[in-house]
């Protein structure tokens, strides 16, 4: 079978144009010499799904998600607005979610839009789980071969005591981040079709890495990404800051194990560790930049305060804290449809703290933790004009 050369393909990828290339020359020498399960080769950074039919199923899911997110969602939004107006309610006003649900939840158009989205999500997870668990010996052997390989390193902490909020099946991913040995595998491909193909080459993470603001003195020796999941942002950060020591931590052992394997396979030196963002074990004043991406909306309010406190402790004076999530750049929409979608995501897509996060005074929590807060940091998320950033007073 013809294998594709990742180096050749990657260096021709337009998405990589804005990052430093000298640290990213394709598969590392170590990776080339160890077990690497990629029977259908790679496209740039992406290891192709290992069977044509699985790839095609996920191609369908990608297209189906676009259809559901587009036409079906517009029909559902129109229906919600019409139903509320028929009851004399203004769907653009800040209605309580109970009122919105009372008048809309049983409508067949709205319900079927939700059903379709959910069934596609379930299909995505099930097909991935079947593949990786159905061939677990090969995939476990591949990870074992990568565990002690470099570049970069892996630290797993099997005895780690996890807070309950980390143990849910976020996004209804079977086993969540902590209970499935192939959580990282599934997360990568599941989010690839969630992003409808727009992040297959880590394009979104590269964009985020490139907007990250620097400390005023310009010194960037150590960077931490909290809640690193598959390590895509951490990899992009190492590429932007090739001389920095980059760490990615996550509560999920399977997540960092996969992240390490993927980064090592790509030849990027990142240190991954299974640790809690609120109990990171790093020394005081250690990092020049700490960041995270779409993490906080999956953390309980108590957890957010604890993570911010730990971030303040481990950031060095003059360092930058740059959290990126739904509302770090723009406030939550108050329309009835937006509130319905947030509620639905919370209830049916395994996002238990989504609504609490939307109501959470995040900037106030950063101030309480001791950060100097600038609400007009560089824009990060698509469509936002700014993003909140914190600095630790020098």
């Amino acid at each position, binding site marked *: 079978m013809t294998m594709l050369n990742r180096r050749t393909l990657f260096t021709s990828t337009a998405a990589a144009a804005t990052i430093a290339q000298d640290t990213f020359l394709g598969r590392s020498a170590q990776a080339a010499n160890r077990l690497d399960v990629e029977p259908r080769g790679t496209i740039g950074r992406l290891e192709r799904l290992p069977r044509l039919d699985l790839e095609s199923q996920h191609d369908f899911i990608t297209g189906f998600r676009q259809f559901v997110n587009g036409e079906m969602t517009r029909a559902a939004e129109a229906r919600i607005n019409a139903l509320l107006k028929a009851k004399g309610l203004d769907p653009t006003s800040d209605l309580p979610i109970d009122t919105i649900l009372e008048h809309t939840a049983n409508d067949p158009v709205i319900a079927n839009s939700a059903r379709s989205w959910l*069934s596609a999500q379930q299909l995505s997870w099930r097909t991935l789980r079947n593949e990786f668990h159905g061939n677990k010996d090969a995939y476990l052997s591949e990870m074992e071969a990568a565990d*002690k390989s470099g570049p970069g*390193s892996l630290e*797993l902490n099997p005895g780690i005591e996890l807070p309950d909020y980390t143990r849910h099946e976020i996004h209804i991913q079977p086993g969540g981040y902590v209970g499935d040995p192939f959580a990282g595998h599934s997360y990568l491909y599941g989010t690839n079709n969630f992003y409808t193909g727009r992040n297959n080459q880590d394009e979104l993470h590269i964009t985020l890495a490139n907007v990250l603001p620097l400390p005023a003195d310009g010194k960037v020796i150590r960077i931490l990404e909290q809640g690193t999941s598959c390590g895509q942002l951490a990899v992009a950060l190492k590429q932007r800051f090739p001389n920095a020591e980059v760490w990615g931590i996550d509560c999920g052992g399977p997540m960092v194990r996969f992240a390490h394997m993927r980064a090592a396979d790509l030849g990027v030196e990142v240190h991954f560790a299974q640790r809690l963002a609120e109990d990171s074990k790093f020394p005081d004043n250690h990092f020049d930049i700490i960041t995270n991406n779409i993490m906080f909306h999956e953390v309980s309010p108590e957890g957010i305060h604890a993570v911010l406190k730990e971030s303040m402790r481990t950031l060095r004076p003059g360092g930058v804290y740059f959290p990126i999530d739904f509302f770090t750049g723009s406030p939550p929409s108050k329309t009835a449809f937006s509130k319905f979608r947030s509620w639905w995501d919370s209830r049916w897509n395994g996002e238990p703290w989504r609504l609490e996060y939307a109501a959470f005074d995040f900037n106030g929590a950063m101030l309480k933790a001791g950060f100097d807060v600038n609400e007009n940091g560089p824009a990060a998320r698509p469509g936002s004009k700014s993003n909140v950033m914190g600095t630790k007073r020098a």
Partner: protein
Amino acid sequence: MATSKSDLKGYTTDFIKSDTDKAVFLGNPLMDDMMTALINLGAETWANRRRVKIIEMLFEKNGKISREMVEAYMPTPEQEKQMQVERDEFIRTAFGHFARGATDIVALSTLNPTSKK
């Protein structure tokens, strides 16, 4: 600190299970199951159509095919783009009615507006 650990037993842990597999949105669990089955069949149908398309492209290019060639085939960007157009047409053909919104329903018993009352 940055050392690997070889003992990996127990690095997965208990999790809190979602109840989403019990969700019934359409008033009758069989209706939900039917919708799920349709979507799953859509994925299976598209996988078969894509396989046939790849077989045709390989045959046209090489005059011969093997299972390995089909599995490993990498469409060109142009082919990929064309297949995505076909995929989206297939999805609209199969599922487009579900997006009609049903805000202006005409019931079965409605008289033809051109007929005499």
